[in-house]
């Protein structure tokens, strides 16, 4: 096992995310790698096929900036408030912004599809879904769901097709040079999601010695052999939370929610917080040390 390339966020987007890329983005309203979205916007990527369980502000920004051609998600909103994901809503309601196609799965079906993808199973039984909108309505994934008869019974069983994203980029807590990545706290669907991706890059809060990894082998959510490259970017999940590292930034979510109510406000947000800041260090500088201190968690060492 050899060390994995350690990239800057800029290099990650340059080298791994061309226009049109199929891209699963990690996080479930926590550990959303928002810094990746910023960089995708800075480099003006187009026609992306984005998969993300919980869309959130991250996906809303990508929609608003016109980067997405197709989206597979289980919901998209700003859970602080909560308020709608305004760009997402505007676009789908035909009230402005670049159009995109959406396909949806429930969170459970998304999870099971990722489990099937991770395990390379031909399908997985999932939540009973017959008669629901998810089952009846299909857009660009006509075979996302199906049904089989239970071979051990006589009832119909809802099944989901395996999800196997071409590329995944996930936020994790820490990683070693070999690519062993660890997370703490709840993990939602992420263990399966990471393993489902054909190629995987992790964005870590910190790079640690392999001996640190060995001290908590149960916290390893993805082994080195699944990881192709590493980005080390503290605060990459801001304004969502990173368990043990920092809190959700409510004022920033409110700011985004407020500005993105109009296309002009959204453009202002992008200009001030993404374009002008130049990179994530610039973004953090604009946020300010006092804000970071307010959000930073002072945990014991794991």
């Amino acid at each position, binding site marked *: 096992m050899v060390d994995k390339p350690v990239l800057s966020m800029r290099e990650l987007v340059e080298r791994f995310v061309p226009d049109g890329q199929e891209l699963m983005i990690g996080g*479930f*309203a*926590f550990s959303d790698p928002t810094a990746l979205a910023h960089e995708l916007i800075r480099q003006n990527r187009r026609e992306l096929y984005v998969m993300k369980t*919980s*869309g959130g502000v991250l996906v809303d920004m990508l929609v608003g900036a016109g980067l997405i051609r197709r989206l597979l*998600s*289980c*919901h*998209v*909103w700003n*859970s*602080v*408030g*909560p*308020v*709608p994901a305004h760009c*997402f*809503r505007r676009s*789908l*309601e*035909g009230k402005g912004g670049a159009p995109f196609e959406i396909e*949806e799965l*429930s*969170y*459970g*079906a998304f*999870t*099971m599809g990722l*489990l099937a993808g991770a395990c390379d199973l031909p399908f997985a039984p999932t*939540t*009973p*879904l*017959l*008669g*629901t*909108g*998810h089952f*009846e*309505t299909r*857009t660009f994934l006509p075979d996302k769901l199906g049904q089989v008869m239970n071979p051990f019974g006589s*009832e*119909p*069983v*809802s099944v989901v097709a395996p999800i196997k994203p071409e590329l995944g980029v996930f936020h994790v807590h820490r990683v070693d040079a070999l690519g062993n990545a660890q997370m703490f*706290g*709840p*993990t*939602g*669907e*992420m*263990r*399966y999601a990471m393993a489902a991706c054909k190629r995987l890059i992790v964005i870590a809060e910190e790079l640690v010695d392999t001996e640190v990894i060995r001290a908590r082998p149960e916290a390893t959510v993805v082994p080195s052999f699944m990881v192709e490259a590493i980005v080390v970017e503290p605060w990459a999940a801001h304004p*969502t*939370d990173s*368990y043990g590292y920092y*809190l*959700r930034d*409510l004022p920033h*979510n*409110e700011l985004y929610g407020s500005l993105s109510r109009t296309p002009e406000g959204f453009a202002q947000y992008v200009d001030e917080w993404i374009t002008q800041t130049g990179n994530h260090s610039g973004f953090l500088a604009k946020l300010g040390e006092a804000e970071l201190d307010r959000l930073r968690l002072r945990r014991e060492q794991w």
Partner: protein
Amino acid sequence: MVTSGASPFERMLLTGAACMDPDVVTFVGFHWPMVMARVARRLHAPAMTIVYENGIVEDRITPVFPTSPCDLVAADGATMCAGSVDALYMWLGAGRVGMTMLEAAIVDRHGNINTTAVGPYKKPLVRLPGSGGGTELGSMGRGLLLVSASTNSRSYPDCVDYITSPGYLGGRSQRSSLGYKPGTGPQRLVNPLGLFGFNEAGELFPTAVHPGVTVDDVRACFGWPIAVPDTLNVLPEPNADELAIVREELEHARERAYLLPQD
């Protein structure tokens, strides 16, 4: 007694909280159910076990009010942090959860919930966030309590445009023929008017209303001719302690960026 000022919204929260059983594992969905759960913890269920879709098990009130189940202050002091296979299937789907609380933005006669799109799916009049795990709560949740803070009949159409979370679909018999498990499907709905149940056909009907709520108020709330029993039970007035606690928690919620109805 300073209870006379209880708003319909506060009454809804207290009624929902009162439905929570301290001895029953409860799956709490986002938004008002989270407020109800905090109120219930402070009133009668401090050690109730609550689970969230991301895999958190919570057995006491958290110091800080989470803005959603994925606001990880919800995991502060958690006894277990697992994942969505655990939460949605091993706990909810397998019947380890005895009560399920789900916000229902738009709900129809048969308890089907739309949180996806009003109007045509591909060109919606109003686009909502989508399902998250709400589909699972509707499909697999036992003891399902729906929560709606609305009394506007647009929130209660005869038939939703998109079934995000299945209620009884076209009726109980249809649901049971499509692979849904016995014991699942909505049991009750709580809104600012009072409490509702589902009859043998799987249709919503009022079971008890708050003091002063009339049959006409109930009829005006729903977008179909809802069947109303001859007599409606009346829910108790909140007492001072209950009202103080719900208001404290709402203040805490406001500090945590919750948009409250009066805001």
